[in-house]
């Protein structure tokens, strides 16, 4: 039963990734001029363009070409950057870790901070209003605006954190990526906090919580076992959206703080018209997003037995 639901979700995942890859590869053919010009970047000579056309067999039909590209991808060949004259994969390798570190760091900040703030504002009425205003503003603050505020305060005025770069090694990374992680997390932290607050407030009113309170169960116990567990369901279903936001935000935040990761590479490749790199990074980011979303959906199937019944 649940296996069928999971299988259905995985099938949708496969279709989505396939369509996404066709779209990203196909974008090449939408460009004015011919695909080789785009791949070669802005300043290629005619000879270079002819060479690329031959090397990549660009005269062959679209799906043959696409199939070769996809086949290469599945074998770890992400294509060749004509700007750097290097395989895209070897350009990405040193950058992946920074991005993964940053996104993970931000996720931890969001989960811990968002749940804590949301719980606090739902359970302690006096804090509620203040937190609501703060999260309202936080929600509307784009990551790059948060970035410049953080840079101004923490890095320039108080000199607590480095302003630029990703650092090397765990501790140095932690230090370098603290401000970027906070900037990236901010609006999602606010969102999670508001969501937690609503979910907890809805849950508090329910009978099972009344009953638990009536039976004299400890408040701490009610909060963790009865409130949070049920409130987690709506929260975890939107975590997919959060991941989308983090992947999108990551691109901006890396650029803002000069972190050398996938996001800033995507932006600089787009600016340099290094299309092979754009394709590879865009596909990686989209695929990651789709996979995480599918995992979240499957996870919520396990978390909430009622969904399983509904799906049937």
């Amino acid at each position, binding site marked *: 039963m649940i296996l069928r639901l999971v299988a259905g979700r995985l099938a*949708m995942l496969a*279709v*989505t*990734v396939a*369509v*996404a890859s066709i*779209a*990203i590869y196909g*974008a*090449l053919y*939408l*460009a*004015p001029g011919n695909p080789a010009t*785009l791949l070669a970047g802005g300043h290629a000579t005619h000879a270079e363009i002819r060479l690329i056309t031959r090397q990549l067999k660009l005269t062959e039909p679209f799906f043959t070409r696409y199939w070769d590209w996809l086949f290469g991808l599945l074998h770890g060949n992400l294509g060749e950057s004509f700007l750097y004259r290097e395989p895209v994969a070897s350009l990405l390798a040193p950058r992946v870790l920074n991005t993964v570190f940053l996104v993970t760091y931000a996720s931890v900040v969001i989960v811990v901070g968002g749940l804590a703030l949301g719980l606090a504002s739902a359970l302690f009425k006096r804090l509620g209003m203040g937190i609501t205003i703060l999260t*309202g*503003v936080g*929600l*509307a*603050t*784009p*990551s*790059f*605006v948060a970035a*410049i*505020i953080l*840079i*101004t305060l923490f890095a*320039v005025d108080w000199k607590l954190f480095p*302003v630029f770069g990703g650092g090397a090694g765990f501790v140095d990374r932690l230090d370098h990526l603290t401000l970027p992680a906070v900037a990236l997390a901010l609006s999602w932290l606010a969102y999670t906090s508001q969501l937690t607050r609503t979910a907890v407030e809805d849950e508090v009113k329910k009978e099972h919580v009344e009953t638990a309170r009536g039976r004299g169960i400890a408040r701490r116990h009610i909060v963790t076992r009865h409130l949070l567990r049920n409130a987690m369901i709506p929260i975890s279903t939107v975590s997919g959206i959060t991941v*989308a*936001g983090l*992947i*999108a935000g990551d*691109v*901006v935040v890396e*650029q*803002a703080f000069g972190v050398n990761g996938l996001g800033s590479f*995507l*932006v600089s*490749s*787009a*600016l340099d*018209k290094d*299309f092979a790199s*754009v*394709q590879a990074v*865009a596909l990686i*980011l*989209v695929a990651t*997003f*789709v996979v995480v*979303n599918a995992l979240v959906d499957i996870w919520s199937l396990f978390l909430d037995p009622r969904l399983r019944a509904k799906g049937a």
Partner: protein
Amino acid sequence: MAGTGTPLLSAAGLLEEKRAGGGLLRDPVVLVSTGIIVLLVVIAVFAPFIATANPDSSNILAVNEAPSAAHLLGTDSLGRDLFSRLVYGARLSLLGPALIVCISSAAGTVLALAAAWFGGFFDQMVSRAADVLFAFPGIIFAIVAVSVFGRGLVAPVIALAIAATPYVLRVTRSVALRQRRLPYVAACYVEGVPAWRIGLRHLLPNVAPIILVQATLAFGYALVTLAAISYLGLGVQPPSATWGLMVATGQAAILGGHPEQSLYAGVMIVLAVVAFNLLGNRLAAHLET
């Protein structure tokens, strides 16, 4: 299309309805946020009359000046008047999101009404396509578009409009489906009213309030994303002023102790987004009750 007047009419209807309950127009949040939005639009439209200086004229003898009578908010690192740049920046900063919201609302609504009307295979196809589009975070879509079609306003706006369409589609489709099952639609149908007319004259006015709410919320999101594109240097190019671009170009001066340009531009973005989010949320809440 002939139906362009209809959403506004029924938005007025929405206001009318709630006034009886003392709702929308007495809600201070709605009043304040609407006030901010109107103010920003007025600033954008009448920029030449509000600005105190030419936003693009630089003066290397007056760089990074503090606020004064001549320069209300001081000057930037090229000696340009910050206040005037912020005022002119409102134009492209608001025009882009407005285009995105208009295009995606129109496309999403037409598809949603068609999907609800025809049902079956067409509905399935449209919904599947929307599911796939959900997989693209808008900003990545926009970056790919920019790398293919070049920087500027057009490529990001179209890309973000396409990325926003499935959100409009999903919500509108579910409301339209509910309307579609109501007897009045069947009554029109047996009377021989053509399908497009039922869609335009009967379904659209009934789904218009929800589209309006969605559009308000989407505006804030579109503004942030487009400002981010602008910040990344992928949107309109200097010396054009947009708030996103101003945050970016001001960033270099932060380390030199002049964070004003970035901060002011950032505040404008946050202010606009807060106003649209608050209004959208309140409208949604009023619509539900």
